């Protein structure tokens, strides 16, 4: 048995780095914090690779074990209610370790160039370290409560980093929005956890996900509003996951989160934190599959809807980071669909495996897309496609790496996205045709919008730039090249040997028809983008005019933000908050003020008794004494 206790160091090193740079970073030169953060993460990265190698490849096994090398009793509330902090290793958490540390390391290196000279450079690195720690803690959680704690921590880091440019009002608005929306969703998560653990008496993933365990007999048969209590619990847990993963209708925070620095968008809002929801569903997959299949298919539908919906919006946007944000939504939807249509055991677990596989490949190519977007923004000082065009001559490395990522997300072989996306489509094809067609259409739209972006930025019109755009420095291009290589080759990793719901390797067979179909729709999307955007022409505008209201609605993101504003401002504020505020101000405060005013008025009247006239006091005293004596005599002496 291999000793895995060193895995504890993987999250702890970034935490220590965070504490040191957070406390002392301001006293040193900024670059010290940057180098420290990067070096610390490099150690974590090496350890993660080691863990991945040892876990998956060092020994041939029938089924992958679930290992808990470290479990510290944190809160011992009662004999049954105990909360641990620990490290749990199983295929998905080891895979996530590799993903998080890889992307985080690339982002750390990239930021050395991208954030150079920014105010708050050391603060940025401290937060990055804190985020990496939280995310690693999240994926290594041994119990659902520990996971909730880290959920909140990554949410807080996301909040801090979105608002990194805290002098910009739009960044402040975006950070508040992200925090409030995800908090609202986390409320559901917490309630779900409470229901679940109340009836099962445990928080541990190991016990919860044990197939055929009898801990659910307490909850069986209970129902609320026609839906079983366990479905409510798992549905609410999914609500939290949907908040983090920005599934419809909680997706509104993610596009706004692009106000943060671009490396943050790459790390948190594309590759790692936003897949926390997918990870949660995958972690609890046996519970969903065996006990609440209704919720599982609901997750699939939410994912499918979000992926189509976000892809359509992405076509019409001009801010390159927003396009990528909607693309992220869409791809996370894919992962949810993969999980939603999956079965358990053997080949039925294809969807689960594909969802995780897509998470892995998506992390690589989406981080790459964001980092190249950062390089583009770095070069032209604008986020908008209208200000770009013909950049391939100026930014050759960025151009090639972007192309690799774009081909990967479009699902063109042999790039990584092809393998994972194809497997999700295959899984959907065999269990749910509706979701299959949704995702199939989305695949076409995906390649269309990403190549619209590609042609619009790197080809299109040759514009004159005020400053000649220049290629990014070496510390920015090295991560790009690394991730481009990853995006090209990680698809060949035999994921079906590594990850499955029942932890046993299984074989997949390729289906030529499906593969051909999915490649064809990808190529179709690229061809469409080629025709419309390769050379500047007025076709896109004509089509937009022809679509009229449909285009405008899409351009305004289906007015979801406006609907939220309407519900919160017009309905909640006017109908609920205002009357309550009035009640508080007039009735509750009024009572207290009335009591105070009455005391003042009475005291104003009776204070005259204290006149300062000594003889008056004496008179009153004597008169009272005489009266008392007379009364006494009258009643008792008579």
């Amino acid at each position, binding site marked *: 048995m291999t000793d895995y206790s060193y895995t504890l160091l993987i999250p702890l090193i970034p935490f220590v780095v965070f504490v040191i740079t957070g406390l002392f970073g301001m006293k040193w030169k900024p670059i010290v914090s940057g180098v420290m953060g990067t070096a610390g993460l490099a150690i974590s990265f090496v350890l993660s690779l080691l863990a991945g190698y040892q876990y998956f490849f060092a020994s041939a096994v029938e089924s992958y074990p679930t290992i808990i090398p470290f479990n510290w009793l944190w809160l011992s509330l009662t004999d049954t209610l105990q909360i641990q902090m620990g490290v749990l290793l199983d295929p998905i958490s080891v895979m996530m370790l590799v993903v998080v540390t890889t992307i985080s390391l690339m982002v750390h290196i990239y930021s050395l160039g991208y954030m150079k000279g920014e105010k708050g450079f050391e603060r940025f690195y401290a937060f990055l370290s804190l985020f990496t720690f939280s995310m690693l803690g999240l994926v290594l959680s041994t119990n659902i409560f520990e996971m909730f704690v880290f959920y909140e921590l990554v949410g807080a880091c996301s909040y801090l980093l979105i608002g990194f440019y805290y002098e910009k009002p739009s960044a402040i608005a975006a950070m508040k929005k992200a925090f409030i929306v995800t908090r609202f969703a986390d409320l559901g998560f917490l309630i779900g956890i409470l229901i679940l653990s109340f009836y099962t008496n445990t928080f541990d993933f190991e016990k919860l996900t044990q197939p055929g365990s009898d801990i659910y007999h307490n909850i069986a048969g209970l129902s609320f509003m026609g839906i079983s209590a366990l479905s409510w619990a798992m549905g609410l847990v999914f609500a939290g996951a949907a908040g983090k993963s920005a599934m419809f209708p909680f997706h509104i925070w993610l596009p706004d989160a692009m106000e943060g620095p671009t490396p943050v968008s790459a790390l948190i809002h594309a590759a790692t934190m936003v897949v926390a929801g997918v990870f949660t569903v995958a972690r609890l997959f046996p519970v969903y599959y065996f006990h609440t299949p209704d919720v599982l298919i609901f997750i699939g539908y939410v994912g499918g809807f979000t992926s189509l919906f976000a892809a359509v919006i992405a076509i019409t946007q001009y801010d390159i980071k927003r396009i990528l944000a909607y693309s992220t939504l869409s791809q996370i939807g894919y992962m949810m669909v993969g999980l939603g249509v999956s079965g358990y055991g053997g080949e039925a677990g294809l969807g689960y495996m594909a969802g995780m596989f897509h998470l892995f490949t998506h992390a690589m190519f989406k981080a790459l897309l964001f980092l190249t977007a950062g390089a583009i923004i770095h070069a032209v000082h604008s986020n908008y496609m209208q200000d770009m065009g013909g950049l391939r001559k100026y930014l050759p490395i960025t151009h090639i790496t972007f192309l690799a990522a774009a081909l990967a997300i479009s699902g063109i072989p042999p790039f990584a996205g092809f393998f994972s996306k194809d497997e999700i489509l295959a899984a959907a094809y065999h269990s749910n045709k509706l979701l299959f067609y949704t995702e199939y259409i989305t695949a076409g739209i995906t390649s269309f919008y990403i190549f619209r972006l590609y042609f619009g930025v790197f080809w299109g019109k040759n514009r004159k730039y005020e400053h000649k755009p220049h290629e990014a420095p070496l510390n920015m291009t090295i991560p790009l090249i690394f991730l481009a290589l990853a995006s090209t080759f990680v698809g060949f990793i035999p994921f079906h040997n590594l990850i499955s719901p029942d932890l046993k390797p299984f074989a997949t067979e390729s289906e030529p028809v499906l593969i051909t179909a999915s490649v064809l729709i990808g190529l179709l999307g690229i061809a469409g983008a080629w025709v419309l955007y390769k050379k500047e022409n007025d076709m896109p505008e004509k089509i937009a005019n022809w679509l009229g209201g449909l285009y405008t609605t899409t351009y305004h993101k289906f007015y979801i933000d406006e609907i939220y504003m309407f519900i919160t401002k017009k309905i909640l504020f006017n109908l609920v908050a205002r009357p309550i505020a009035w009640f508080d101000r007039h009735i509750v405060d009024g009572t207290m003020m009335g009591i105070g005013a009455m005391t003042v008025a009475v005291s104003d009247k009776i204070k*005259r008794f*204290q*006149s*300062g*006239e*000594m*003889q008056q006091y*004496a*008179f009153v005293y*004597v008169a009272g004494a005489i009266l008392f004596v007379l009364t006494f005599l009258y009643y008792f002496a008579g």
Partner: protein
Amino acid sequence: MIHGLTIYHFLTVSTLMFFIGVTGFIIRQNLITILLSVELILNSVVINFLVFNRFLYPDQLQGHFFSLFIIGIAAAEASIAIALIINIYRRIHNINADNVNEMKY
């Protein structure tokens, strides 16, 4: 024992003294006179102590000792009162009780 005088005679005198003192305390304006009224009240109480001791418990001495205490305390009180009155006079140049009413709400 003085012949022909009973406890009632003594008590009548002391009661008269007491109420004269109380009345004087309330109606007189001059602070010195008020102080004299207080002395009257105290002395009426001293008489009471002595009379009750003499007529009711002739073989005991508590009443006598209390009388001596009261006389001593009355002397101390008179000296403090007069010191206060002198200070008041220095401030407002009269010793009229109506003018000494600063200590109010």
